[in-house]
């Protein structure tokens, strides 16, 4: 936990207050135009050099591949289901070593889990639940590209309704592709009452930076779900990553919010939401909703889900439209 009165932790107001120093260097084998990397890079600028990243298997396996690492700090690799357990081990070891005087308190580091949605939403749900329940002082950064991206875009429980994946192809009996709805991980995590919980988008760097600055002042589980547009898996040109990140927020599909001790605040509420179609159209994974025949029913269903979510937000917060 950093000193909350420190001026470095004050919320920023413009882009030029973002740190110029890099903490995740270029040269990784991650795809060009990766939305997840864009978000992690900005997060790392707040986390600084004194970190140990505990990385669940996934796309970000490719960050540190022998003999190269992009990190200025340490990195530990775990199986998909056990990153939070790995974080517990690292945190406990550090605490013990500091208590015994073998590591100076000034050399303490932040323990940061980095995991994809396949790990986070599916396999590691239990280990993470345990770590949050125990009040572990750690960070959790989930880069959510809504599929098992590293293995070629198979459906995960983060895949949204209507997206085509390798394991949910479009057919006569599944005209929408994925028929399931996306698991609401934010609410599952929130039910644990972690110290801090937030969603972030690489296209909203000030919002992202301020959320990490805020969390830095808290002790306990600090959990982040980062929207991670994926040109390789979602099938669009890499240059459009920031566009789709923006459209996800502006259509209301991806809500920017945080929860401190379980109390939810939406940190960005668009005055008027754009139609979801603007986000869906153009992504190859949704092409079947528009070609060769428009699937009105599916598009309507997605719009309806978004409208219902925000109607509920406005109702419970009393926020004016």
């Amino acid at each position, binding site marked *: 936990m950093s000193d909350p009165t420190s001026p470095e932790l004050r919320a920023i107001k413009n*882009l*030029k207050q*973002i740190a*110029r120093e*890099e903490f*995740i*260097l*270029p*040269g*990784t*084998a*991650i*795809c*060009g*135009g*990766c*939305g997840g*990397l*864009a978000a992690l*890079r*900005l997060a790392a600028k707040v986390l600084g050099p004194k970190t140990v990243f505990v990385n669940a298997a996934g796309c970000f*396996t*490719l960050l*540190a*591949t*022998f*003999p*190269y*690492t*992009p*990190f*200025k*700090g340490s*990195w530990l690799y775990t199986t998909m289901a056990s990153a939070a357990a790995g974080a517990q081990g690292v945190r406990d070891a550090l605490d013990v070593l500091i208590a015994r005087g073998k590591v100076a308190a000034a050399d303490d580091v932040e323990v940061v889990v980095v995991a994809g949605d396949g790990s986070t939403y599916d396999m590691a749900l239990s280990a993470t639940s345990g770590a949050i329940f125990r009040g572990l002082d750690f960070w959790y950064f989930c880069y959510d590209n809504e599929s098992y991206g590293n293995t070629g875009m198979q459906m995960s429980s983060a895949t949204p309704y209507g997206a*085509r994946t390798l394991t949910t192809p479009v057919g006569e009996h599944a005209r929408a592709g994925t028929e399931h709805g996306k698991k609401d991980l934010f609410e599952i995590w929130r039910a644990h009452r972690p110290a801090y919980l937030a969603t972030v988008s*690489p*296209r909203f*760097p000030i919002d992202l930076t301020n959320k990490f600055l805020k969390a830095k002042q808290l002790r306990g589980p600090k959990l982040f779900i980062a929207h991670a547009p994926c*040109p*390789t898996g979602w*099938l669009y*040109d*890499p*240059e*459009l*990553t*920031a*566009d789709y990140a923006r459209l996800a927020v502006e259509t209301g599909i991806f809500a920017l919010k945080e929860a401190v001790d379980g109390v939810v605040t939406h940190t960005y509420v668009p005055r008027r939401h754009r139609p979801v179609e603007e986000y869906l159209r153009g992504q*190859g*994974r949704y*092409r079947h909703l528009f*070609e*060769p025949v428009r699937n009105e029913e599916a598009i309507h269903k997605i719009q309806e889900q978004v409208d219902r979510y925000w109607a509920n937000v406005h109702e419970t917060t009393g926020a004016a439209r």
Partner: protein
Amino acid sequence: MLRIRFHGRGGQGMKTASRILGSAAFRAGFCVQDSPVYGAERRGAPMAAFTRIDRVQIRERGAIVRPDLVVVADDTLLTDPAAQPLAGCDAESTVLVNSTRDEAALRQEVPAYTGRLLTADFTAVALATTHALASLSTALGVAAACLVGLSLADSLAGLDDELTESHMSMAQKEANRQLAQTVYAQASSWAPVREREDSRIAETAPLVEVTFDPPRLAGPSIYAVGNSPQRRTGNWRQFRPVLQVERCTRCWICFVRCPEAAISLDAQEYPVVDYDECKGCLLCVHECPTHAFTVEKEVR
């Protein structure tokens, strides 16, 4: 048996090119096998795919060691130690390189290679017809089909098999068929690849002797810090963003949004693209509010 090896970078479609060739040969009545190298390949990272074609059932498996035809999607791979596209090539091999440079210029890079070397700028042809870089798979798959002596009809049938599976729009599929015909006509001027006399003799890759080392030596632990820039991912790039300084307002947007940390700011806060590392995603070009970046096709 004919053995064809494709080398490309993730996203250039060489896995698909290998499938197009395989499907075309299958349509022509041959026994076929095709497989890409699966690993940690990513958009831009070197990858390979293998196609075997024979009149009888193919029992050979695995990587192709001594290829009859090698198709290289990108001439920067020729000297890439991770890709080694010319490994196992000899005087009887044919190497087809997608490049803007001529044969003499390419031979200077690979002086040890003595076989046939063909070159053409398929990227330009693909972009002119389909406006999509991914259609390089169609161009090189069909060029390979032509080079191994398959007919235009079979090549188009093989292409159609692959297009059916793809997520492309109808217009894009048609553009790819157009491209196939153009490329086939172009490749017809080259003499077809001949089967080797001893082609049925199974290939054997030398076995790697595995020695036992203590975990500290044998484990893939990294003791360095921040050394990834040494990998130089700049050679993944197909197009390069170039800053036109006079249009730049120093707004920081490209610096903040570059996923790679490949853009830094100089003392006057002008962005500086690190071309050793920039993967060419062109996000900066698309995001710049004053259109201060122009795009140049990489010519190496």
